[in-house]
């Protein structure tokens, strides 16, 4: 059954191609047109026929008078790709094909910026990839210049100009040494797309605590906690205070609040207070004898 069907379809295609070859000189179809542009097709012969245009995701059907030209207004054919024109009349079928290419002017960008959040001072830590589309959302395959721009919170700007390959352009950029939100913009022609990259402080650097008696307890407080580039470590970061004394230990995980972590702990004679945040250790204080 399958081979029979295959031969039948093959025969049909060959017949259409044969008929098309015979009519090549007469059916006047443009070789390629830009997506969305108006165009016309010259129909040979006389009488009435039906003209089909079959393309990606789209079929057009027109009843035409042979010997005249059929016009298609702007916006009739929008999807880029290969189209087949079939002219069906009583005497037979004529076929021809043409290509619809994306419009040259970029109209929209799909911009992938990764990651949305990263530590400061990371080489090639930020990646951006852009796909350039025309007004009908066709990927513009022709090389198109794309500029990438990363504005840091300090106002410094990193720029790179890249040409698309097969519709895509990509780049890598360094995160700056200053924390804050950076604007990452990709631009092609008159269109641009922006993403926000959050540059966050690294691990705490030089973690220091001091102790002050406060009633029956001891008030332990860190100095403002900063990373090695001088950025304030964000509030909510956990700082662990540990008091070790003969026969016991007390621990409190305290979140940073306004750059400092503060806790009250019972002072045991001969106790040692230490501080840590993640894998970073700070100074230690001995209390009493």
């Amino acid at each position, binding site marked *: 059954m399958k081979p029979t069907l295959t031969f039948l379809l093959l025969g049909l295609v060959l017949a259409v191609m044969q008929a098309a070859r015979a009519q090549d000189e007469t059916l006047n179809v443009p070789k390629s047109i830009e997506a969305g542009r108006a165009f016309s097709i010259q129909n040979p012969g006389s009488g009435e026929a039906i003209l089909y245009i079959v393309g990606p995701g789209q079929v057009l059907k027109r009843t035409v008078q042979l010997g005249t030209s059929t016009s298609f207004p702007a916006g009739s054919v929008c999807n880029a790709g290969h189209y087949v024109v079939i002219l069906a009349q009583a005497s037979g079928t004529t076929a021809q094909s043409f290509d619809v290419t994306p419009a040259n002017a970029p109209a929209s960008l799909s911009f992938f910026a990764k990651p949305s*959040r990263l530590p400061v001072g990371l080489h090639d830590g930020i990646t951006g990839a852009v796909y350039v589309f025309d007004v009908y959302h066709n990927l513009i395959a022709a090389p198109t210049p794309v500029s990438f721009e990363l504005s840091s919170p300090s106002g410094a700007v990193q720029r790179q100009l890249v040409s698309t390959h097969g519709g895509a352009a990509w780049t890598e950029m360094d995160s700056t040494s200053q924390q804050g939100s950076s604007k990452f913009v990709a631009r092609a022609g008159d269109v641009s797309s922006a993403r926000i990259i959050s540059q966050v402080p690294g691990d705490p650097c030089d973690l220091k605590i001091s102790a002050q008696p406060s009633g029956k307890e001891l008030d332990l407080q860190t100095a403002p906690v900063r990373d090695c580039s001088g950025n304030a470590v964000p509030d909510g970061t956990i700082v662990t205070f540990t008091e070790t004394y003969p026969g016991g230990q*007390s621990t409190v995980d305290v979140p940073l609040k306004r750059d400092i972590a503060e806790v009250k702990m019972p002072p045991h004679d001969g106790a040692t207070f230490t501080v840590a945040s*993640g894998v970073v250790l700070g100074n230690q204080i001995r209390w009493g004898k």
Partner: protein
Amino acid sequence: MNKGGLLALSLAVATVLLIVIGCVWPVEAARPFIIQKTVFTSSSTPEEAVQKLGQEIQAHDWQKAYDTFANKAQFTEQEFELDLTGYTTNLRSYSTLDHFSVWPLHASEDEADVRLELDWATVVGNAVDSRDLQVVRNGNQWNVNWPYTKQPTVPPQVIPVNYLRWDVIYRGSGDDWGAQDVDAPSVRIVDMHPVQRADGVLVMGELINDDVVPAYVSVSATLQRKDKSAIATEGSFDEISHVLLPKQVTPFLIRFPDAQLSDVDSINMKPFAILVPASADPVIEIDNQKFNPAPNASLTGQLVNQSGQVVNVAHVVGTLYDKTGQLVWVADQYVDSALLPQTPVAFNVPIPEDIAKNVSSERTVVSTFSFGGAL
């Protein structure tokens, strides 16, 4: 009688017989669903009096238990019930008494000390509550002096809380496919150590939230043979502190029952993290944390809720290190009473005796859950 009638009669007899057997010797799983009848009706010895009390607690017969107390003038029946089930919603509020044990400690003519160990079945496993009871003679009867623990009261006050809270807005479903989304938190395993135990292989370690946002974390591990084929894959389940604030470190323990470390060539560790809304509050202080060596090795201490919010369930996860700083054990325990503001609650995490001799230092983390609140 015809054959059908005989069959019906035998089925009825068998059904009645099975019901009787089921009620008299119930399986453990069915015990909570049976209306408990007190078996010990007399209190002619101190042990019998405590046994009877245990049965009444198991049957939730608070009134009967309360009526037998020698010191019932000191508290009400409701206070007795709340003393056992908790004044504030906690793990014990939804538990049943699975079983109990009685040990005589000391006895004289008119007075005796008896230990009553209550094993409560909670949603996270068994919780043991041990009470030393004084039992006094009253004529031919013995009555228990219930060691009533008065509910700690927190003075009326306003505690301002201005710790950070993180909320998350993810990209919308209608956004363009290239639209930006928030990335998952960056987490890292900083320590990993497999050990062979009698019941299988244990993989323990520590995980840090390297990011500046809170993370919900878990860890899974796959034991692999030399040819990289998988022996087994397991997760840390609840032997980990799941919500990690920025730069917070949690221990984890993964159990591989019946596995042999000698069969393992490599272990593939997979930390998992997602961004979740969280609050830096409540802050829990772990006070008087102490490792108690064998016998009865344990990690003990007190949890002090420094915030104003009541913590209904607290989970203590302890990490134990040897003198070189190498991780030797991870142990955990759920605290079965609520943490009221500024009110210390004791915890006691048992440690295996063979591990205890190697322990040199410890670190404890606490994760909390408040009903009606966020994690």
